[in-house]
């Protein structure tokens, strides 16, 4: 059973922005949409491993900073016509805190 880890307060992630999350073994990106949904992806674009945390968030996608692929935050899939997928992680918001399941 995976645990929920308390990573941050919601307000610590900028709206329409992201935070980098470093664990001992992984680099993740934690995104917050305009509607305060939060998503977590591995911080590596399916194209050439660009850091998605540095991209621009719009709707529920992020545009990779290196070559502009658009990645769906919920599924981790690149939007057509590009193909590829980044690993996704579950998130949960409770009492203004963001929890992550790794």
């Amino acid at each position: 059973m995976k645990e929920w880890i308390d990573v941050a307060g919601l307000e610590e992630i900028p709206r329409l922005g992201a935070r980098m999350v470093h664990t001992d073994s992984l680099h993740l990106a934690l995104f917050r949409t305009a509607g305060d949904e939060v998503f977590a992806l591995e911080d590596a674009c399916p194209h050439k491993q660009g850091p998605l945390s540095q991209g621009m968030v719009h709707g529920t996608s992020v545009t990779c900073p290196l070559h502009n692929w658009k990645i769906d935050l919920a599924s981790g899939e690149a939007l057509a016509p590009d193909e590829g997928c980044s690993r996704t992680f579950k998130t949960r918001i409770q009492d203004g805190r963001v929890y992550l399941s790794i």
Partner: protein
Amino acid sequence: MKEKLVLIGNGMAGVRTLEELLKLDNGAYRITVIGAEPHPNYNRIMLSPVLAGEKAVDDIVLNTREWYAQNGIELKTGDAVTAIDRVRRTLTLASGASVDYDRLLIATGSTPFIIPVPGHDKQGVLGFRDIADVEQMLAAAGQYRKAVVIGGGLLGLEAANGLMKKGMEVTVVHLLDRLLERQLDGPASALLKASLEERGLTFLMEAQTAEITGGERVEGVRFADGSEIEADLVVMAVGIRPNMALAQQAGIYCERGILVSDTMQTYDPRVYAVGECVQHRGTCYGLVAPLFEQAKVAANHLASFGIARYEGSVTSTKLKVTGIDLFSAGEFIEAEGDETLVLQDPAAGIYKKLVLRDNRIKGAVMYGDTMDGTWYFTLLREGTDISAFRSTILFGQHDLGDAGHGDARASTMALPDGAEICGCNGVCKGEIVDAITKKGLFTLEEVRAHTKASSSCGSCTGLVEAILAGTVGEGYDKVPSKKGMCGCTEHSHDEVISAIRHGGLKTMQAVRETLEWSTPDGCASCRPALNYYLLAHWPGEYRDDAQSRFINERAHGNIQKDGTYSVVPRMFGGLCTADELRAIADVSDKYRVPEMKVTGGQRIDLFGIRKEDLPAVWRDLAAAGFVSGHAYGKALRTVKTCAGKTWCRFGTQNSTALGVKLEQLTWGSWMPHKFKLAVSGCPRNCAEATIKDFGVVCVDSGYELHVGGNGGIKVRVTDLLCKVQTEEEVLEYCGAFTQKYREEAHYLERTAPWVERVGLNHIKKSIVDDAAQRQALYERFKHSQQFAQVDPWGQRAGGEEAHEFTPLKVAG
């Protein structure tokens, strides 16, 4: 229950509308398509190459039956609608079936006009419109020898060429003394006729058809003057008539075509119409580019977005006879007061003519060398002032293939599949052709999205367009007449700028709401643009939105391929002291900077810095007096200088000190694109001032000011703005020019394309000719600089936006 949308006419405009609709709103309607032809939707344009044996019928199918099935569209082929009952909202089909609708889309195209002379209904008399016609022509070509094509227009000549290639002896009969009179002027038409005759076609000019003779099958054609020729096949290509009989019977108002509004609705708002069957603002179109624009608008309206309007199109044409290059667009016969530029080389078979009004292209005719047709057409549609390059415009835009593609004029289609077209993304010709044919791509945008070719630096755009044209056929939408800023809006950059300035819009939200954006928070392409426009127009009032900045500008460094950043401190005018160099060396040691380099902009770049270290690096640099060099921004970059009068034996003025003053004036300013300056101490021009956005060349008697230069992808030498006497004037003119660019250019448009678009005269008028305007611009620039000249590095070293640079740490 979902509403039901029925499309009558399974052709190019109708199906394109459905494609646009699916893109916008999948699942809004249950869709049924009824088509009289037994085929799925195919590329009618390519019937000519099919007839000429250059393509097979299977190659030209655009939407396979699987496509309809995958999108849940019910398709009835080989069945025609015979009646529309608008009260009960049902259709009756030839097969006797009936179909209900909630909304109806009529796209019945047009029918070839058959001259009603005696004998016109004999066997072997055809129009040239669909696959059935082509099949009959091919059958005739296998069995008979003599063909007569009536009509010397585009369609007639393509039919004649095809039949000749299939081995028939072809005579083209034309009523007038000139071929393609709607597309060509006299000289170009004569060149065309000569080269078609050389290939083996026979022409009968100024001949009026009086009768088709023969028994059951055609045997000849007789003319009004009594003469007669033999014929086993007669193709009539004398024009088309909008196919509106069905709509007329149903009481929908028609004139020459089905009348539609700017939203592509007929007088019955439940009934839309697009394509050749409609008449919009008095015009019926017969080419696909405008029909595709109509399709976009109709789809937008069907999806209830209701923001798009169709306002008519300017069209251009080409003849699809392999080996013959011909292009025309706009008003190519000059009206009174117009000027014409002509280049004529009969021996080489080249003729080019441009019709100008007020230094703007109104029309173009080209024969023999049409490589630049698209360029002229773009200049025409955008109303570009061409005075700056008027003297060379007829020689073409020599930029195709600049970035190492070799001689692009050697036909692109003749390149081998392995030839690299896009140097940035490593895309070869074969991949592009493959994507176009397999995925059914039509537009440059689609090719960019699917192959990435031409999506980076754009220098291969001309080549990609040539491949697109060669593969898909001409007439496709190369330059949409009005370009929305991005997929989120139909509004152009100019409209958005004007709404911000005159409509007093001061937030991104207000812009998106007022101009009815289709997305709630924009996209990675419009957000930075809006953020810039608001910042430029409301200095001190608008608060910069970090989340609408591309990462480089948000993190104030250039992101590298491995996710680290580079740091380039500003060195005003390229000058530096030993202390400053020592400070940079210390930073390099302390943060173990993997590489340092002197840049092309006369300063030092520290590469490979981890994002977490950026604030500390900046703090150390700030302590030594450095501020950000904005090497990452759409902003003032560098001011290059040369040694100048202080040391150089040729120097006429103190170019180094002037460069420092200019950089002190302009640093920190956000721009539509990057902006570079240089000051050279004499006309030897060691600082390369004549390829900068604003360049100063010192001369003994003062300062020459040059604008609109560009190194980079497409090199452009500056235009001389004017000459001034004092350093103060240099600063004032520079500030005024910069501000004009900041206020008027489109986001991501550098000064070079901007100057070409608006014309140097437009800039001179407010900066050189009008002192009051120049001073007002300069004042506005200085006002906005009060808010812009804060060092972003210093701020962040002081703790601002700390979340941007500190990762959240989690165990596990």
